Structures are given as C-alpha cells and as structure tokens.
C-alpha cells in the first residue's frame, strides 16, 4: 500500500521526518506519535503535496514525486482540522467533493447518499453543517474521504475532540472501513491505546524517526501487561504466582502487585479464574501500557519496566503516562 525509503523532510528549523523507512500492508495501520512527531507531514508527502527533502515514497505503487494527481484520485484524506463550510449541507458538500475526485454527477449523488448512510448520518444530512456536533462533523469528514471509493484512506487524528463514546464509534467505523468496505486505512493518533484495538499493524514514530513497526499482536505482547493486586496475604500471592506460571504466563512480582504480561485475549480469563479458584479477593486488575518513548526498549530489557531508560530519551511533558494507562477491570 505504502512504502517509504529513507524519507526525510526538513523545515528550516525542524526535521519533521528523519530517514523514515516503513512498509504499510493492506489492512488498518495505526500511525502513532506524540504532537510534532511528523504524522501529518508524512501524510502530506504521501499525497504528493509536499516534496520530500530526501528519500522516496510510493503509494499504491505510484511514486509520490511524480504521480501526485493519480495517487490523489485513488486515495482518500481526512484532515485533522475542521474543514467544513458551515452554511452548506453535508449532502451538498460531499457531492461536490465526490465530483472533485472525478465522479460524474449522477454517481457523485448516489455515492454520497450511500456513504453518508454508512457513516451513520441520516436526516441531518440536509441541514447546514454549522449546526452539527463534533461527532457528526467527524463523520462527514470521513464520508468525504470515502465517497469516491478509494483504495486507501489516510485519516489524520479522526478521534480528535470526541468523547469516549464518540471515540469508540469512530474507531468501530474505521475498523469497518477495512473489514466491510475493503478499503485500507492509515490512521494517526497520539494514543497508542486507542489504535491497538483498531489496527492490524502499528507504526510508532517520534521526532520523525521510526521507533517501531510491527503487527498489533506483537505489540500487545511487549507493551501490554496486567497489574494484579489481591488482598494482602503472602501465601495466596505465592500460590497465585505458581498457578499463573504453571498456566504458561510470564509474570513477575513487585511488592504485592503481580505484573502479568498479556499474551493474548485469554490472559484476562486465566488470571480471573486463577484468582477465583484460590478464593482470594481481587483488589484490582488493571491493564498497563507503556509510554510511547518506552518502546525504545527491546522486548528483552522490557522485562524490567522500572529499569532506567537511559538519558537520551526524555519522554518530556507531552507524554502523559496517565493518558496511556489502560482501563480497569472491575473485580
């Protein structure tokens, strides 16, 4: 779908992309990075709208430097910022955008109606967009990216500004773009957590450099761990430790917390059943995710999350560990 080779983009003051080499395969790919990591810059280059300072990139096998218009007729783009004129209805706007993508008038109208329905916009679509909620606006923005039935969509922070419910709906919709519509997706976010559930592959960049690129399942192994706390009795804790080790889970103890690496979906059930079997009280069971910068650590040294991170990757104030903390599971 997308292949970049040593792609760099330098602005007078900053290096937005630094020798980035990635290969994006069909499916949903999450592009994760903090603010200023270079996500939007990468999208700009992929659409053939900004020249790379160095290196090469191809989208759908077409060179971004020479085949910009061709790429843009086969790719959809959802910007991170607002882009909807308030005095026009969603239908009118999306029809116009469909025609701008080369669809003949009749096809543009037909596909607009279909696409707006698919993103969940019904009667509202005839009203001026100025009165829409953020959630509805994001849906229209998604619809205009999908209306010409592209092979690939580039979604820049589609969950921006949405509340938790709206966020889940948007992520579900994005998942369906691939599973139901067969359109590959590159979606950016600064939260690794929300893309883990949606993406088949994750690419993490920071300061324009590639930190990691792998399938989501590999990712979860490294990044996900489950903190289990039971009512404070030493024997039971040791029993639980043995039981979980016997079940084939990787875990370690810190104080009266057990850190269990999440191997797959069943990990939760195994832990829950083990706790229930021993008859101890479960104080909490909480999924933890590492901060983006911690992904520097390779899987081997990741066994020691308290270990020092080295002086050269300061996560800085923009990485908020709490934001990436997982959800608690009620006992």
């Amino acid at each position, binding site marked *: 779908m997308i292949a970049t080779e040593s792609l760099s983009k330098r602005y007078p003051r900053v290096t937005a992309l630094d020798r980035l080499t990635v290969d994006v395969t*069909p499916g949903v790919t999450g592009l994760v990075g903090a603010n200023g990591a270079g996500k939007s810059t990468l999208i700009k280059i992929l659409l053939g709208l900004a020249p790379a300072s160095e290196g090469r990139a191809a989208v759908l096998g077409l060179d971004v430097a020479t085949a910009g218009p061709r790429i843009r007729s086969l790719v959809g783009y959802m910007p991170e910022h607002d882009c909807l*004129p308030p005095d026009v209805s969603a239908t009118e706007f999306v029809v116009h955008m469909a025609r*701008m993508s*080369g669809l003949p008038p009749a*096809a543009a109208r037909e596909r607009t109606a279909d696409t707006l329905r698919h993103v969940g916009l019904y009667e509202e679509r005839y009203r001026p967009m100025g009165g829409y909620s953020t959630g509805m606006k994001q849906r229209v923005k998604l619809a205009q990216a999908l209306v010409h039935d592209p092979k690939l969509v580039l979604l820049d922070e589609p969950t921006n500004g949405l509340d938790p419910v709206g966020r*889940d709906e948007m992520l579900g919709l994005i998942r369906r773009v691939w599973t139901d519509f067969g359109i590959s997706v590159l979606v950016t976010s600064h939260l690794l957590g929300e893309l883990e559930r949606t993406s088949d592959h994750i690419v993490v960049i920071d300061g324009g450099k590639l930190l990691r690129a792998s399938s989501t399942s590999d990712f979860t192994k490294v990044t996900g761990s489950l903190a289990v706390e039971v009512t404070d009795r030493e024997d039971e804790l040791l029993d639980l430790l043995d039981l979980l080790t016997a079940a084939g889970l990787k875990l370690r103890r810190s104080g009266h917390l057990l850190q269990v690496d999440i191997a797959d979906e069943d990990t939760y059930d195994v832990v829950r059943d083990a706790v229930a079997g021993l008859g101890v009280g479960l104080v909490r069971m909480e999924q933890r995710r590492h901060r983006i910068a911690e992904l520097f650590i390779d899987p081997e040294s990741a066994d020691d999350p308290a270990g020092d991170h080295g002086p050269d990757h300061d996560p800085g104030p923009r990485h908020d560990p709490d934001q990436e903390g997982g959800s608690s599971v009620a006992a």
Partner: protein
Amino acid sequence: MSQPDAATAAAPPPEPSAAPPTDVIHNIGYRAYEGPRLGRGYARLSLFSQSLRGAYGLGRSAKSKVLPMILLGVMCAPALIMVAVTIFTHMNRLPVQYTRYAVLLQAVITLFAASQAPQSVSRDLRFKTTPLYFSRPIERIDYVAAKYAALATALFLLTALPLVILYVGALLAKLGFAHQTAGFAKGLVSALLLSVLFAGISLVIAAVTPRRGFGVAAVIAVFVISYAAVSSVQGVAMSQERYDVIGWLGVFSPITVIDGFQTWFLGATSAFPHAAGPPSAVAGLVYLLVLFGVAAACFGLLMRRYRKVGLS
C-alpha cells in the same frame, strides 16, 4: 448516535490481517465504485461551475442569493428603461454607447466583485476547505484557474446581460442593424476584458485574508480610492488644460484602464474629462500592456498565494 456503530465498536479486537477486500460476504450494503474516474480536467470544471453558481448564491443559502440577484437587477434596470424610452419615443439611437454602459454602472460592478470574490476564496481559507481541494486530483494551477475563470464569468454575465438587453431593444426599435451589431460586439469585448481585470484584482485582495469582511472592504477601497484619485487628478489637469495628462492618468485605476483601452482600440468615446483618451499610439499600447499585465500579474500572485497552503 446510531446503534450499528456502537455495536461494532464493542466487537473484540481485530484478528491480525482481516478479510481480504474481495471477501464480499462481509460487504453487506457496501457497493464498490466501478464507474469512470474523470480526473483532473473534470475536477477543475466542477470547481469552476460550483464557484460560478456560488457567485450568484446558487447551491447556497437563500440569504446568499439576495445581494447578487439585487445587483444583477440594478445592473439591468437602466438598460430596460433606456430600451423602453428608445422604442416609445422613436429615437434614432440608443441613449448610451454599449461601451459606456459598464463605466456608468461601475459602482454596481465593484460591489459585485467586492462581495463575491471573498465569498469565493476567503471562505475556503477561513473554513480550511482548501486543503481538501488539494487532496483531490487537481493541482494548484487548477484551483486558481477555476476560481479566476468563475469570477470573471460571473462578472461577464453581470456586464454583458444589460448589453444584450440594449441590443435586443435596439433591434426592436429598428435601429441600424450593422451599426448596432458592431457596437454590441465592441461592448462585449470590453465587458469581457473588464470582467477579467476586475476578477483578478478582487481575487488577489480577497485571497490575502480569511476574514470575509476585510476582503469586502479592501476590494471596495482599492477600486473606489484609485478611481477617485485618478478622477480628481484628471480634474486638476483639466483645469490646466493638460489633456494629454488626462489621457495618461487613466492607467492608474481599473475602470479607467478599460475606458482608455476601449477608447483607443474600439473607437469608444472616453468618459474622461474632455473625452481625452490615450493621447498617442504609445499611450494606447501602454493601456493594452497594463490591462493584460495586471491580469497576468494577478494570476501569478494567486499562484504564489496558494504555494504554501497545501495541507497545513
């Protein structure tokens, strides 16, 4: 909001590399598009027609139709009255030259350009729709050309429609066919050039700011102030009987450029004081160069303006 989405959102995490795109079993309701993709030229044309319609408020709210339609009405009303007078009083010529009509009603044309140029470009900047356009198959030059051509066409409709009314009226009044046709043709040529010039200048000014109000005020100011300045200095020259100076001064405001051009090249009677058009062939040539030079420069400036817009 809608239930189906909430349901899918709660679905278990994705299995790595899900169904291939050809797996139609899951594609309930989604239809792929197999039809033609008409590409860049068609997209440019779509933007042109949308912008042209937008200049008259079509495809937009009822409120935005009011001003352009009123201006169109005001532009045509004098022509209708003149035609009526010509027919009923059996005059042997129209009360006004075809080429003079736009000069007389320049205030209306200015208002139209000032209100619709920002409508066309400032809105895209303000609501950040421009990046969406550039994510389509078009290039920067297509956007600029479509917007420029659309406003020029809108202005041409505004300036040419009253000329059509005059011409039809003149024929109904049985005025000389050859003479009227020649005058009408010259009127159309100068209306076209005026439209291109006015569209270019007002778009360049409007594209500077995403604030529509500023755009409107700035366009009016440029047209009105330049015309007032030229007229008053021409008035001074008139009082000193420097007719050649009057003829030269016209190059400094848009409507007087048109006046000077049509006086020299189309045999129109100048609206300058003392009807003093360009004093020499050199002056006539300068008017021509200014007219086309300014239009080309406006196009260049617009191209420059959108160089940085991209996706930011």
